């Protein structure tokens, strides 16, 4: 395999996992790890039972609850009977089919895209699927990770494979060095802004360049997480020493000689020097500033020093007009000073320990503006524990943030954490879609966790660089 050159990680991992070419022309691709949760799986298990099928690889399937779980009152049964029912169904289904399940009482519970890496389940050179569009997160490890729907979850349960077409690869180089107060979130928002929310259609995104090389694993996860917001089903970073150091010693990572052999495999899948790409895009990291969305999709973003865009001459003026109608802003208004009512730090994009540390650094010794409702929702039980050991919970609660237990929470508002009416939320999550945070009239401004903390203190959008 070392003889062929010019191949990307995507090409290599795809080839290793190809079971067959199907009569349709699609590839039957083996899926090394299947993560499941309570929302998109119940009908998939029903379909298995209807067809008399078993789970092909229960030992490669792991389950947790994240989307619907309450983040405050965790006693069972949950107050929300639908949440209780979906949790019970997952408990029953995982028991019936012999799948490991990390429920609300487990110290391994958390958002699927936080716990997979944290447990060392997610590894380089692996394929991974999950019934959630932010599965691209795991690409931070050099994993080909696919977000899928329920019928495809059924396929992976029944066969540990997917029927899927190969993508082209777009290399995205983020060159240079980020300025202080500029985070991974600002990088990915800038990439989506540049390439568009549909720009990644047909592509896997391979992120590289000095900025990405210098990122820690949690920052790389933030970048890969939002690949899908740029239209790319898959996003990844080539594994390197940063990756191997992160994985060493984690529960599902081999130890001793096994670890050395794992590293040898992981190194073998990285993109070749001179790999051929379908497209190459360069960004200058030094030009990125703290970035916020102003509209109703993640591509509608501006740097903090900019003004909101004009409609005239825009290729999708009708789309911008719709965004302005929903948000209630005017073209030409400065991003700085936009008002907020709610602050949310959490989600699979930005709920890891480094995110909480960055937000706590801003909040330390300050007070949340009395008009703002602010919550911090760690991504997993382990992140919560770690944060408490570091005293971050105290910093947040003393500043006036609520400190919660792990879950998806106000990112998609399937639990009681929701916006009300036309509230505006400064959010470290990934989607500013209309209605996303639980109120049809609610409004979302996406930004880094540190920027959310700064906005919470001020009741409006500010430049976090003035608070560091």
């Amino acid at each position: 395999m070392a003889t062929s050159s010019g191949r990307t990680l995507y090409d290599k991992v795809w080839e290793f996992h190809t079971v067959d070419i199907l009569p349709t022309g699609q590839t039957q691709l083996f899926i090394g790890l299947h993560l499941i949760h309570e929302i998109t799986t119940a009908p998939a298990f029903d379909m298995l039972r209807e067809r008399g099928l078993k789970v092909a690889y229960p030992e490669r399937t792991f389950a947790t609850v994240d989307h619907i779980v309450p983040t405050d009152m965790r006693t069972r049964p949950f107050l929300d009977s639908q949440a209780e029912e979906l949790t019970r169904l997952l408990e029953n289904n995982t028991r019936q089919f012999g799948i490991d399940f990390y429920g609300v009482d487990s110290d391994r519970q958390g958002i699927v895209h936080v716990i997979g890496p944290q447990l060392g389940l997610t590894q380089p050179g692996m394929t991974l699927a999950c019934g959630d569009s932010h599965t691209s997160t795991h690409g931070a490890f050099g994993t080909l990770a696919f977000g899928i729907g329920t019928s495809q979850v059924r396929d992976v349960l029944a066969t540990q494979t997917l029927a899927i077409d190969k993508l082209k690869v777009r290399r995205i180089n983020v060159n240079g060095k980020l300025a202080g107060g500029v985070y991974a979130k600002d990088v990915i928002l800038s990439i989506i802004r540049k390439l568009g929310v549909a720009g990644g259609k047909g592509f896997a995104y391979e992120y590289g360049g000095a900025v990405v090389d210098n990122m820690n694993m949690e920052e790389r996860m933030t970048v890969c997480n939002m690949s899908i917001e740029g239209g790319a089903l898959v996003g990844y970073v080539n594994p390197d020493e940063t990756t191997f150091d992160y994985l060493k010693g984690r529960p599902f990572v081999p130890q001793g000689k096994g670890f050395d052999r794992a590293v040898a495999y992981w190194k073998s899948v990285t993109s070749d020097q001179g790999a051929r790409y379908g497209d190459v895009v360069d960004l200058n990291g030094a030009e990125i500033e703290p970035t916020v969305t102003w509209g109703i999709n993640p591509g509608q973003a501006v740097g903090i020093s900019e003004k909101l865009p004009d409609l005239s001459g825009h290729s999708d003026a009708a789309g911008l007009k719709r965004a302005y109608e929903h948000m209630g802003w005017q073209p030409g208004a400065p991003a700085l000073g936009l008002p907020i009512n709610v602050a949310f730090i959490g989600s699979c994009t930005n709920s890891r320990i480094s995110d909480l540390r960055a937000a706590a650094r801003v909040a330390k010794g300050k007070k949340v503006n009395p008009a703002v409702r602010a919550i911090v929702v760690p991504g997993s039980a382990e992140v919560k524990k770690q944060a408490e050991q570091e005293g971050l919970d105290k910093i947040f609660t003393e500043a006036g943030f609520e400190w919660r237990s792990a879950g998806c929470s106000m990112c998609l508002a399937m639990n009681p954490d929701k916006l009300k009416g036309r509230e505006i939320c400064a959010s470290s999550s990934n989607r500013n879609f209309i209605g996303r945070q639980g109120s049809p009239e609610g409004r979302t401004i996406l930004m880094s966790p540190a920027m959310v903390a700064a906005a919470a203190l001020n009741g409006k959008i500010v430049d976090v660089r003035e608070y560091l």
Partner: protein
Amino acid sequence: MATVTRIQRVVGTAIPLRGNDIDTDRIIPARYLKEPTFARMGDYPFFDERFDAQGKPKPHPFNDPKYCGGSVLFVNKNFGCGSSREHAPQALYRFGIRAIVGESFAAIFAGNCVVMGLPTVTVHERDIAELMRLVESNPQAKFTLDLAARTLACGTGEIVPVELPDSTRTALLEGSWDSTTMLHANLGKVKSRAATLPYMTGFKA
């Protein structure tokens, strides 16, 4: 096991739904994903755009009597972006949509539609603009999507070329869109492939 259903053509009146980047949160708000089955999803497509807080209908193509019974949905760019929720195409299908014709579709949404046997085909920007105008002025116009011929025939006699991935077209035409049976038949090969992967054997020497 599932029976084989070949999908060769879809015939029906159309519903025009204007706008780029219509995400799956808009197609089906997350609160409806709390139901344990897809059975009632047909009641919910675009719920928050179709009804106000009191449940009073708002103007929306899915509420408009003149498009009632339409089975072909016309959309613009990047339809179905965002969340992977299959509830979105399930809601459209159960509402009565049997084919979606648009400028482009988001990847996961399109993948979900294939596995459900719901064709999504793309047409040129100029053609979708014309199709939307046509159905808005003549809601009773019938359309025939012919997957074998890769065409959409309009009631007026005009024929528009449509595109879809070859694999999708084959899967729909041959009735192998419900992929489980096809994948399951290969389980022996799956096990052979798995045995070659270092992480599947615990990185043993």
